[in-house]
């Protein structure tokens, strides 16, 4: 199966600060790829390049190519790239003045969906998919911010799923959550990978091990090692990777 995303010689900077050096990586389809590494290694920047969000930061630049299904992201409109590559952030980001329903429907409305039935279907479907439906089915008109942290995060996942992206990027989606909420999101990720390509940045090594099929280890802006998760954790090819995954630094 061809890779969903091909990253070729990616370099990224914030102004004068060089944060990613010559990263090349093939992200496989219908699988979970985890990005691990110590703080400041460029893993979030890497993720933000994949839906061209990086370029929205003032002063941010990048070179190199990223292919989605073989097509260069840069040759396409940024808005339509982001519609195919969804993203979930570290902290839940519900739109505070919108209801749960409208939060999830936001992306559909952007796409011009107007018919009530179509919206209803999309919202219900996305909430079911995100495993949130049963908890909110009676509260759809409550503000999106009235949910607990874990529920808000799943609401944001539902919002991203509602437009049916092909790739889902997750930037430390559980770092602000308690263990039970984390567990729910992890099992959701395992379920999602049957239909989506998931890329997850995480600080939590155990989490990377539990949810991912492939793992990339970044250090100081460089890709050190990339391979099947089991191999990275059990038989790392590099000394640096071994030191990191066994907890000697990081």
């Amino acid at each position, binding site marked *: 199966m061809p890779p969903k995303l091909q990253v070729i010689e990616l370099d990224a900077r914030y102004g004068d600060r060089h944060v990613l050096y010559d990263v090349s990586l093939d992200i496989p389809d219908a699988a979970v790829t985890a990005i691990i590494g110590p703080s400041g290694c460029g893993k979030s920047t890497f993720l933000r390049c994949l*839906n061209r969000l990086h370029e929205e930061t003032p002063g941010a630049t990048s070179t190199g190519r990223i292919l989605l299904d073989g097509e260069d992201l840069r040759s396409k409109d940024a808005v339509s790239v*982001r519609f195919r590559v969804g993203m979930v*952030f570290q902290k839940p980001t519900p739109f505070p003045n919108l209801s749960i329903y409208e939060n999830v429907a936001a*992306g559909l409305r952007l796409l*011009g969906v107007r018919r009530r*039935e179509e919206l209803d279907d999309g919202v*219900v479907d996305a909430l079911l998919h995100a495993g949130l*439906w049963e908890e909110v089915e009676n509260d759809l008109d409550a503000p999106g911010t009235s949910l607990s942290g874990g529920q808000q995060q799943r609401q944001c996942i539902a919002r991203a799923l509602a437009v049916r992206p092909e790739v889902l990027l997750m930037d430390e989606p559980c770092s602000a959550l308690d263990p039970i909420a984390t567990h729910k999101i992890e099992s959701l990720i395992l379920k999602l990978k049957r239909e989506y390509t998931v890329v997850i940045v995480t600080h939590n090594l155990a989490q990377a091990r539990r949810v991912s099929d492939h793992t990339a280890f970044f250090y100081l802006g460089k890709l050190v090692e990339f391979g099947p998760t089991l191999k990275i954790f059990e038989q790392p090819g590099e000394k640096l990777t071994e030191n990191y995954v066994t907890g000697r630094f990081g």
Partner: protein
Amino acid sequence: MRWLKALDRTFHGITGAAAASLLLLLLGLLIVLYDGARPALLRFGPGFVLGSSWDGAHDLYGAYPAIAGTLLSSGLALLFAIPVALGVALFLSEMAPPWLREPLAYVVDLSAAVPSVVYGFWAFYVLVPFVRSTVEPGLASLTGGTGPFSGSPTGLDLFTASIVLAIMIVPTIAAFSREALRAVPRSQREAAMSLGATSWEASRLAVLGPARRGIVAGVILGLGRAIGETIAVAMVIGNIYLTPTSLFSPAQTLASLIVNNFGGVGPGLERSALFEVGLLLLAVTVGVNVLARLLLGQTSEPRGPRRPAGFRLRASALLGRQHHPLPHPVSPASASAGADSAVAAGRWSSHLVDRVPKNLRRRRALHWVVVSICAGALLLAILPLASVLTTAFDRGGGAVIQPSFYVSENPLGCNPGPGRSCSLGGIGPEIQGTLLLLGLGALVAMPLGILAGIYLSEYGRRGRSRFARGASFVADVLTGVPTILLGVFVFAVFLRLDHDSATSALSGGFALGAVMVPLVARATEEGLRTVSTGVREAALALGFTRHRMSLRVVLGSARNAVVTGALLGLSRAAGDTAALFVTAGSSSFWFQGFNQPTAALTPFIFTNFGSEYANLASDAWGAALVLLLMMLLISVGARWVVRSRSVGAEL
């Protein structure tokens, strides 16, 4: 060590007393105005607000025309100002290239520093003729000259006054809206963008909603300013005491009524009626400001879980629609058993993807339309400042380059004719008077304001003291009280204490002090609050006593902010006309004693702006330019102080 404790307590007491003076100022204002208004209140009762005459011969007074004029002019001003201010705020916070944002915002803020007498002067010479010759006839012919557009356009009317008010409140509304927009975290915008929103859609979806409360508060504060604005309105509204019947009617507002009549009346029923008008104005502006501050205060409160009633019904209605023929009906009952089975991958992808290019072009176009509109709003907002500056340089530049202008007395009014040239004279006494009044005001306001600010920040932290929070709130409200009322207040107090010096340099100085105190107190408080708790605790841990910690460590590291606040207060006081006009008296002589009337720049402009003598008009423009240059200097100076963060603990 006991004496150190005592010193701490003394310091607490002194700063607390300074903070209490803010409360006393508001309370005193209320009492003095009420006291002055009592004869009129007894005589006219509640009918005062419906009475429509201002008849000195028969001693009949009613405020209805002024109330109507105030509501109409400020309402109309809001109508003009809100779209422009929102456009400015959106452009500056969301759209402008990052390196342009600060300088542009600075220019917009600068237009808030132009004294209202200068705006009025400019409007009288530039705006009024334009409105009279072009705008109003155009409107009249478009509408057939009926209803609100009836009557003959004179340019000196409700319509022009509303435009001037709008120009003056746009910076206020824009500043508060911009703050509210900027307070929305970046992650909100990014969340919207990663859903595939264009940048305008991200603003609409993720930024405008959360910022709504702050924007509304800014609009209400703008309304408060419009209601209380005195001098600029008095210069262009026509000042005829009739209930307006059209936009082109000359009118009066509550504030312009006071400033136009207060100087000329002796003790008696008319003065009392003016006090009652003042009481009305105070009630309205305080009410509006309290509302706005309450709204602003709430933004910081976290929103707790909320369960609105009625959602259950609607949600079940949503599920009850299962009989609708959907492409792939989702049955939640069965789906919840196995969510993934109900969701066929890519089921919608195809037809959604088809949609993208179709509506994308329209959405991109919409984005650029909105950006252009907002950029246009910014240009519109900057235009008045540019015009004010060029007009002032054009008409006053000749005067200010002559050294004698700064040291000579006012000339006799004269028009140059054949074989006759006029002496330009100068504004020496006015400059002397203004400096003196500012000095007097600062002498009162700086210690009081800074001490009060220390109390509000150091003893009111973390909601420890309800009194401190209340005083801080009152200081905010006081900055929204029209300065004409502060002038009337000081005048009335002096009248009671020492009849002869009610209009004097001393009285004027106190009036400017009253204008400055709340500004300085709040600026100091804000500045001190930026000093981190860590620094304070470190100082206390080193064995500093509380007052030494406040004075040396905290004040030391927040010195720049305090200086900026003091400059802001000075600049506001230097540009004030209304409070001086009723307290400093009228004089065109050099200093004659603290208990004598004194000359000053702003009243000089206000009394001579329409002078039929060419040399006096030139002098007034020269004075306006001097004021503008002073404002620019103070503003640039304050910015420089903020920039040069030489935060040292060498105090």
